[in-house]
């Protein structure tokens, strides 16, 4: 058993820490406040090969492993959970979907520019009436000559307004049930596909989220990803990868909450002593540090399983469930430790708390994770 990261992984983590401190931390408050997508940061992320860490070099990536990608997401999220998430869904879901299911042509045409960071990927599955219940989706894709014609409305699409390469799920055969959903790669600018304006969210505000509307959107047959009807299986596998990323994002949030809480509690004097001397505070911090470690081990383990080419579906769900709930629990505590100051705009813990909530919701709610886990253990 070996708990040690490689020297390369440690260095890459350190470099991302420095990157985030230099380019992300200083603008994190502003991009949250203005709900702004920091294109300048993504340009720099692309230059440093951060947008495709686990993707092989022949497809434009850095050719590293999934754990290394996870470490980068964690460090990036420590400064800004929105930026961390945008990279996570781009790599963990959009890139991975094409890598695992695409033809050589699709990989060259779509994966390569995504992994290089020239194009941003998006995952288009959720619909107004179909969240956890994917089967309730209504968007259809009907074969018409050499193209599929898509119609329907998607929502909560992350990277919707800013994306370049969309992984869109639609029914090719609704009657076939679980074997009737298909996935299409649709580049930005395709006629009939439009993104709405981005939603005003509680947290994760610089991540751009919108509706996606498909109106007689013609997609060439060549853009079908995998086989017709394989969409659901691909989506679930995509979630497995994405969830480890969300777990990493959550760890980054908890780490930031812990850092802020330690710093503040040691400096804040009440009744003549730093509040860290109060057991009520120090035990909150102890729990925070403990659950952070637990979340980290779950997450790294899930990524390690993936790198060993072992099944990691259950572990991904466990990591995501535990890490995201820890993020919510402990950012609330972190605000409590900061008192009134923590409730004000500009306090990092205030943003962390708002950002944490979404980790329990997207890429499968906590309830959905429990369904996956219980389904696995009760089998």
């Amino acid at each position, binding site marked *: 058993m070996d708990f040690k990261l490689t020297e390369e992984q440690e260095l890459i983590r350190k470099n991302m820490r420095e990157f985030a401190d230099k380019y992300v931390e200083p603008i994190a408050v502003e991009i949250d406040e203005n709900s702004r997508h920091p294109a300048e940061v993504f340009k720099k992320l692309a230059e440093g090969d951060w947008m495709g860490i686990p993707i092989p070099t022949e497809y434009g990536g850095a050719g590293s492993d999934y754990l290394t990608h996870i470490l980068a997401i964690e460090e990036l999220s420590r400064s800004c959970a929105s930026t961390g998430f945008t990279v996570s869904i781009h790599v963990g879901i959009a890139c991975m979907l094409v890598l695992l299911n695409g033809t050589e042509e699709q990989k060259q045409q779509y994966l390569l520019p995504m992994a290089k960071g020239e194009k941003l990927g998006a995952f288009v599955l959720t619909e107004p009436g179909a969240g956890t219940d994917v089967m309730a989706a209504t968007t259809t894709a009907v074969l018409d000559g050499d193209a599929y014609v898509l119609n329907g409305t998607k929502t909560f699409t992350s990277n919707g307004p800013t994306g370049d390469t969309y992984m869109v799920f639609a029914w090719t055969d609704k009657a076939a049930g679980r074997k009737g959903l298909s996935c299409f790669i649709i580049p930005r600018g395709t006629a009939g596909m439009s993104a709405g304006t981005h939603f005003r969210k509680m947290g994760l505000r610089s991540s751009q989220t919108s509706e996606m509307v498909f109106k007689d959107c013609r997609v060439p047959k060549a853009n079908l990803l995998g086989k017709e009807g394989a969409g659901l299986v691909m989506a679930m596998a995509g979630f497995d990868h994405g969830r480890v990323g969300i777990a990493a994002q959550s760890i980054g949030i908890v780490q930031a909450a812990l850092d802020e809480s330690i*710093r*503040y509690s040691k*400096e804040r004097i009440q009744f003549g002593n730093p509040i860290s001397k109060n057991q009520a505070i120090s035990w909150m911090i102890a729990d925070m540090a403990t659950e952070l470690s637990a979340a980290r081990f779950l997450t790294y383990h899930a990524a390690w399983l993936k790198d060993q080419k072992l099944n990691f579906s259950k572990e991904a769900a466990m990591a995501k469930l535990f890490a995201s709930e820890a993020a919510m629990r402990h950012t609330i505590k972190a605000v409590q430790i900061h008192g009134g*100051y923590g409730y004000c705009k*500009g306090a990092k813990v205030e943003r962390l708390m708002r950002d944490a909530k979404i980790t329990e919701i997207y890429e499968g709610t906590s309830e959905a994770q429990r369904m996956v886990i219980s389904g696995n253990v009760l089998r």
Partner: protein
Amino acid sequence: MAGILVIAERKDLAWELLNIGRQLASQVATTLTAAVTGQEDNAQNHIARGADEVLLMSTLPEGQAFDAWIPVIAAEAKKADPDMILLAATARGKDFAARLAAHLGTGLCSNCIALSRGEDGTVVMERLAYGGAAVQQVSCVTRPVMATIPTRTFAPAPADHSRSGEIRKLSLPSPSPVRIVARKVKERSSQDITEAKVVVCVGRGMEKEEDIHIARQLADLVRGEIGCTRPISEELHWLPDDLCIGLSGVQVKPDLYIGLGVSGQIQHVTGIRGARVICAVNKDENAPIFQAADLGIVGDLYDVTPKLIEELQKATRR
């Protein structure tokens, strides 16, 4: 011969070194020698300020730098075998000292901020380490003991014109392959901040270059000079390097230091430690500068500074 040798490229530096040199020499009743650049008419001044012997390093041919003297001084030191050699911790002094130490095969305490002689005669020297987070005490196991001392650590030695001493002119060194082809004397936007009684320091909390006028306005009012943290001069180039305060910049010792939007990184704080009163304006209540400060205002410098100026105007008018 034993004794203490001070080496300086300017007379003011020589006088500061002669001050501590004299103190140490008197403790063990040894001689004090000063190797100083300049002409014979200056040499008498060095004797007045404590030197028993002056080794004159006369003007070098055009294009030669101070470090050309290293082999000459090394030969002198090997001959005279002093107990101790002191130089100023200026760029030239530090470079000279390290290379001289290599010639002599001895240890060197760089940026020595205090030195004293223990009961057993060991010289204990103090210096800062880890970016100023730690004070390190060292002693040297070889002869001579060498140290470079930051400028203004000691006051110039007082002059006593009744003193007498030897003056010897050193023969010119053979030319160094390193040639000075140009000198750019820096344009000082203000007077030397190391001498200023009041320093207003601009930190990264300042958002735009043109906003520096806010700090200047405050500095003018309190008759102070402007300084800055490293990012302001090094990364943003809003102010010249000679105004950068910190471990690797200048160290200031004003009566009053006011930091505007200065976060208080250890490397910077080390450069202001000598200030009598340290004040800080920062919107982050937890900024480390407040730990190093005597007085602080928690607030945005853009909001606070104009109000502070107004209040100071009222107070000084009274």
